[in-house]
């Protein structure tokens, strides 16, 4: 085995490098896949990033890529690259649980559009990653199948809901992963693990086959260790899908070119005034302020902007998301698929449904379903759901006004670094604060990215920088992200993840 194909080197490579290596014949897709499967076998017992590893399926996909190359066929830009798929995307013939007991043994008869596009692009799907049940949470502690550890400190949370995906990247179990972001579930875990995560413009990536949490907020997106890798994955999964009525029927911005360009000269950057103050960890703000300074040094014009309605974003989110989920999750009724409890011949369907939902849903899901049921009830609708939708309008207007004077906005991704597992488990309000900075973009439907901007001095844990761009200007995220990534790595002398403890 050459240096290039030794296991450690294969699992630490970027997706772009792996794809180029396979295309050039320096290594085979099967070698790459086996290296990652071996890494999973070695470390996942500690990390618990995966709920299901599809060893056979992954190797079969890898072999198909190698055969394709042997036949001289053109390979796509991510052909043969392994990927960890959040267990919220349906996969035909492979379990899809959404981190819930209620779907524990469900094997979907169909592929999500994203799954299909990954397969069509010859990406090798290693398996399904852990998540907060139905994507409700910010720590992955709400998974019915146990929490995921943060590779930086296994006693801490990897963020959520897509903690399995972010941890799989940080643990070098996969170079690419897929997440979904309803209130920050891609960006917040990226921040916690020093990885890159992008929530594309709402409607940019098809939601067909993505198990719904909150339909008007959910958006699938790429997770990677580099900005370019995220862009390559973004290009594969994005684009119009006639099976999703909310899918945008326009060309996808050229995110790969933007990531390759990585120049912010003359770019106008707005710092959101509302995202600092009480509740923000000192080390987080220190790294954020350094990033602002760095952008100036790189030639960007930085100004402060105010988005006053953002202070109500969290409240609006915790009405809209629960309302939609209370309806989206009604289908889990023990009749057509999934768990059924208490069907002993004496009970009626109504009772069996109620017993099954009681047994199959975790506390956070029950809380949100009841909260949403409350917010939509007659007599409360206008005060809660209706007002939340008005706040949504105000937030969108704030963004619109800000984007009249700046090209992108920036903020810390999260107020704090990764907290210990269990710390906020029974304090929902404290948990909800983790998404304070990420939620406005979900409400407005625009595009946002988190990328690592250093370690907080007080705890040595990763800090994320959030970049927000207007809807359909996803390319700006990559342009800014690539510039910051390159400058920071030049300063550090290596990618931040190299500082993570070995597992």
């Amino acid at each position, binding site marked *: 085995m050459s240096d290039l194909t030794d296991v450690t080197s294969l699992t630490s490579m970027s997706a772009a490098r792996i794809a180029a290596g396979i295309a050039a014949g320096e290594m085979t897709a099967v070698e790459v896949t086996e290296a990652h499967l071996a890494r999973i076998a070695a470390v996942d017992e500690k990390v618990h990033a995966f709920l299901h590893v599809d060893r056979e399926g992954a190797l079969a996909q890898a072999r198909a890529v190698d055969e394709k190359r042997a036949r001289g066929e053109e390979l796509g830009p991510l052909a043969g690259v392994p990927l960890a798929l959040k267990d919220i995307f*349906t996969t035909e013939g492979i379990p899809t649980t*959404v981190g819930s007991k209620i779907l524990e043994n469900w094997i*979907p008869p169909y592929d999500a559009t994203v799954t299909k596009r990954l397969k069509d692009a010859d990406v090798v799907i290693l398996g399904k990653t852990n998540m907060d049940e139905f994507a409700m949470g910010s720590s992955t502690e709400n998974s019915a199948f146990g929490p995921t550890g943060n590779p930086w400190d296994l006693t801490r949370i990897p963020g959520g809901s897509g903690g399995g995906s972010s941890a799989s990247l940080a643990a070098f179990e996969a170079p690419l992963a897929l997440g979904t972001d309803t209130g920050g579930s891609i960006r917040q875990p990226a921040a916690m693990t020093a990885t890159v995560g992008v929530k594309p413009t709402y409607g940019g990536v098809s939601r067909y086959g993505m198990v719904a949490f909150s339909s008007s907020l959910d958006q699938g997106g790429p997770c990677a260790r580099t900005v370019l890798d995220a862009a390559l994955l973004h290009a594969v999964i994005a684009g119009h899908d006639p099976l999703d009525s909310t899918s945008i029927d326009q060309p996808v911005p050229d995110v790969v070119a933007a990531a390759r360009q990585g120049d912010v000269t003359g770019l106008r950057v707005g710092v959101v005034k509302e995202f600092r103050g009480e509740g923000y960890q000192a080390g987080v703000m220190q790294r954020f302020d350094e990033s602002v300074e760095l952008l100036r040094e790189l030639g960007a014009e930085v100004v402060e902007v105010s988005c006053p309605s953002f202070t109500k974003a969290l409240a609006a989110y915790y009405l809209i998301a629960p309302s*939609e989920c209370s309806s989206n999750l009604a*289908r889990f*009724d023990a009749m057509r698929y999934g768990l059924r409890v208490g069907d002993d*011949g004496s009970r009626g369907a109504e009772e069996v*449904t109620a017993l099954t939902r009681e047994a199959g849903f975790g506390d956070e899901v029950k809380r949100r379903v009841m909260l949403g049921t409350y917010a939509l009830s007659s007599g409360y609708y206008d005060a809660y759901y209706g007002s939340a939708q008005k706040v949504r309008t105000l937030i969108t207007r704030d963004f619109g006004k800000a984007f009249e004077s700046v090209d992108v906005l920036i903020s810390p991704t999260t107020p704090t670094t990764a907290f210990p597992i269990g710390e906020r488990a029974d304090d929902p309000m404290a948990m909800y604060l983790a998404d304070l900075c990420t939620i406005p973009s979900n409400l407005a439907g625009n595009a946002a990215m988190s990328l690592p901007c250093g370690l907080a001095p007080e705890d040595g844990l990763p800090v994320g920088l959030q970049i927000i761009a207007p809807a359909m200007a996803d390319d700006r995220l990559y342009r800014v992200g690539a510039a910051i990534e390159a400058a920071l790595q030049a300063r550090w002398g290596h990618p931040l993840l190299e500082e993570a403890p070995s597992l």
Partner: protein
Amino acid sequence: MTVTELASYEDALDAYDPVMGLEVHVELGTRTKMFCGCATGLGADANSQTCPTCLGMPGSLPVVNATGVESAIRIGLALNCDIAEWCRFARKNYFYPDMPKNFQTSQYDEPIAFEGYLDVQLEDGEVFRVGIERAHMEEDTGKSTHIGGATGRIHGASHSLLDYNRAGIPLIEIVTKPIEGAGARAPEVAKAYVAELRELIRALGVSDARMEMGQLRCDVNLSLRPHGRAAFGTRSETKNVNSLRSVERAARFEIQRHAAVLDSGGTILQETRHFHEEDGSTTSGRIKEEAEDYRYFPEPDLVPVAPSREWVEELRAELPELPRLRRNRLREEWGISQHEMQSALNAGAVGLIVATIDAGAPADQARKWWLGELARRANEEGLELADLPITAEQVARLSELVAEGSLNDKLARQTIEGILAGEGTPDEVVEKRGLKVVSDEGALGTAVDEAIAGNAAIADKIRGGKTAAAGALVGAVMKATRGQADAGRVRELILERLAPSE
């Protein structure tokens, strides 16, 4: 079962004004479902026309059927409604196993069509205007079969089996404004409204609107208020009244039942009621203790529908002639009474008669066959006229055969029998069954001669000038030819041969 107290109909109307609200669900005849591409054809294997979307599987999403929207707009226009410039779908949340998502994708406060009316003509020709509150788009549910109960009913069943082929088929729900002022004619108005709506839907070509197949279903809401009182009384909602006759009977029964309750000082419960075809009664269904809380909210998986005014005007321009106006035109053309036209309408025969006339038959013949022999046969088989295995062209050919003398009425009825039995076209049946009127002079002549020879006494009477006796000989000839002879011609031949010698 407890016997329901009823007031006499006359007494009820002496004391109260009935107020009705009719809710009709029409299943559209689109090729695919409202929100997915599954086929909608009838008679398919259980659960063979389902997909992740109409099964409500995790991750699935709806996409609106353009023809569903177009049909809704056309129905709205035909009902003289305003068409929304912008409207949304909403989720109506409630749990029921035949509804895969446990919410129905429907419309709530933003229906696609609203504020219209339908003029219906009563049997005496009076036109009654029924106000239309709204027409909106929604989806049908799956079908449950209850197993283990005595009569396939829900009570006593051990379990149920669900087939979701019907789940997601487009429905248009049409809701009237409160129908007031019909007085004793309220049941007739209800029936005439549903009949007229059915004709309208068929004329638009958006659905076959077959009530017996559940393609058009009616809920009858009814309340009474004492004469002179403005406020409505409490209403009952009689669900799934699925024939025109039942609509009339249900309204009548509820008027009498409400009156009896109110007369005895009781109060009407706001409840759903079930209608029973056997005796025309209704029985209590579910009492609405707490008002239903459907938690409607705009469907986030679908975007708003904003029909352009150009499109709406295009659809308006393409509307067919409205059935009531068309019927009045036809009634004059055919020279029949309002009552006769009403019978044709109730029998579902108007379109068939027109098609038969278009195929060349005279109007009176077309009416005669469809409303006579064919209506009788349809009734016997429990079928709608349109379902009889005979076409308008075939009926037209039949009447042609009669007109040219090849068939008499009796033979024509036998021909119909053959056609309905699947023996072929009118000509084929006549051929196969040998039904043609015997008008061949040679064959007839022989039969006449034989009859004369076999009935010498009668023949003599005729020769003696008693021509009335010819009837007996005609009968003999008809018997000998098994009815296939042209009786008029036989008589002529007999009289010719037995003419008194000069």
